């Protein structure tokens, strides 16, 4: 935990930089707001409809898949850490991971075969 103490310093410096940038921007920049200046930027055309419109579900799918694969990857990390040390203890660790990964690859193959991400 002590190793993270300097990160605390860094956190403070980063905060100072953010506050500094914010104040400098506020102090130096002129301000003469005009209605058209504050309008939505849509290439000079009068904006049509709301920007808060529902989206394609493909984006949601990507987010879910990312979550699943991120969880999978999180389990690779502890394995990666101990793998080299446990080489002398036979192939148990290797097989454990190969089985785990085989299931993951199966999932990937399913995604591609069903073309769920509309990649083709």
């Amino acid at each position, binding site marked *: 935990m002590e*190793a*993270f*103490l*300097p*990160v605390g*310093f*860094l*956190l403070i*410096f*980063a*905060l100072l*930089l953010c506050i500094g*940038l*914010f104040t*400098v*921007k506020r102090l*130096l*920049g*002129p*301000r*003469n707001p005009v209605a058209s*200046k*504050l*309008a*939505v*930027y*849509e*290439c000079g055309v009068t*904006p049509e409809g709301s*920007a*808060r*419109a529902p*989206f394609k579900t493909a*984006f949601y799918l*990507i*987010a879910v*898949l*990312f979550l699943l*694969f*991120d969880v999978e*990857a999180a389990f*690779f*990390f502890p394995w*990666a*850490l101990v*793998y*080299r040390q446990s*080489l*002398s203890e036979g*192939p148990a660790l*290797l097989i454990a*991971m*190969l089985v785990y*990964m085989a299931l993951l*690859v199966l999932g*990937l193959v399913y995604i*591609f075969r069903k073309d769920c*991400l*509309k*990649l083709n």
Partner: protein
Amino acid sequence: MEAMDLIVTAVKTAIIYLGMVQVVPIMLIVERRGAALIQDRPGPNRVGPFGLFQPIADVIKMMMKEVTIPRQVNKALYLLGPFLVLFPASLVIAAIPFGDFFTLFDRNYVLQVANIDVGILYVLAIGSLGIYGILFGGWASNNKFSLIGAMRSSSQIISYEIPLGLAACSAVVWYGSFSLREMVSIQEGTLLGVLPNWGIFYQPLGFLLFFIAAFAETNRLPFDLPESEAELVAGFHTEYGAMDFGTFFMAEYMNMATMSGLMVSMYFGGWHLPWISDATLLQWLGSRNLLAALQVLTVIVKIAVFMLIFVWVRWTIPRFRFDQLMRLAWKNLIPLGLFNLVLTALILYFKGAA
């Protein structure tokens, strides 16, 4: 002595952080002159000798510009947006090792903000937070271009985070450690007597994956879909101007520097010079601190080379289309990443068994 340590650490952190922030003005001029060089035009050459003061002019311009907060925005998140990107970009540098250690008042201090034992995980974890600035900034802008840019950008970032993690994981398998510092110290010496003992020779595929994913994570061309100025005005920061826009840029350059630092530490020997061991260098130089200075210089030069490659690629390769980008990540990079992981494990196994 305890207080002394704290002060030295704080000063060290401040110096490293300020040094990383200096990447921004340096890259401003390097990028513009680099673009000019590649496109066969003079580039900025009026402000100061060879246009060297151009970044100062750029920064002053950004600061003096009018601050406009569009009417339709969600004010709190809109104002927070740029800082949500800059903040993680500032924090990740903590894990990058710039050298072994230096001695001050008979005490040794590591040349790194924090000697974190889970360094690579720290970088991946904090690095993944930059996405929120883009998501919230784009959403709060309440503009169609911003929202589309934000959704595209975040899909891209999360998709490429997986190959990035898998490549890093293979490196962890190879080195048997999470700590970037340990990874660098393993890379000392030579391989087969000719090559430097660098990670790239053991993890060529891993490096390639990491390299490609690093471009996507930093939103650089050919993966600058979030900005893609020809299609989406400016992507997620369409409604941002003045220093807010500058803040997004600062974060981008700092992220580039961090990614370069990571690649240097994991695949290019970190602070080690090729073919010369630290012990020999110490004998030649005769002083620990002189060696430390040389190590820092080595890391900076290596990072600079990567930054130049970033610029070079940006002005050479055209942009991907969104579906091509997604296909590259899911169909090519992720299977390759898994393959690399298995390959590394198998090689280690048979090497150990033989």
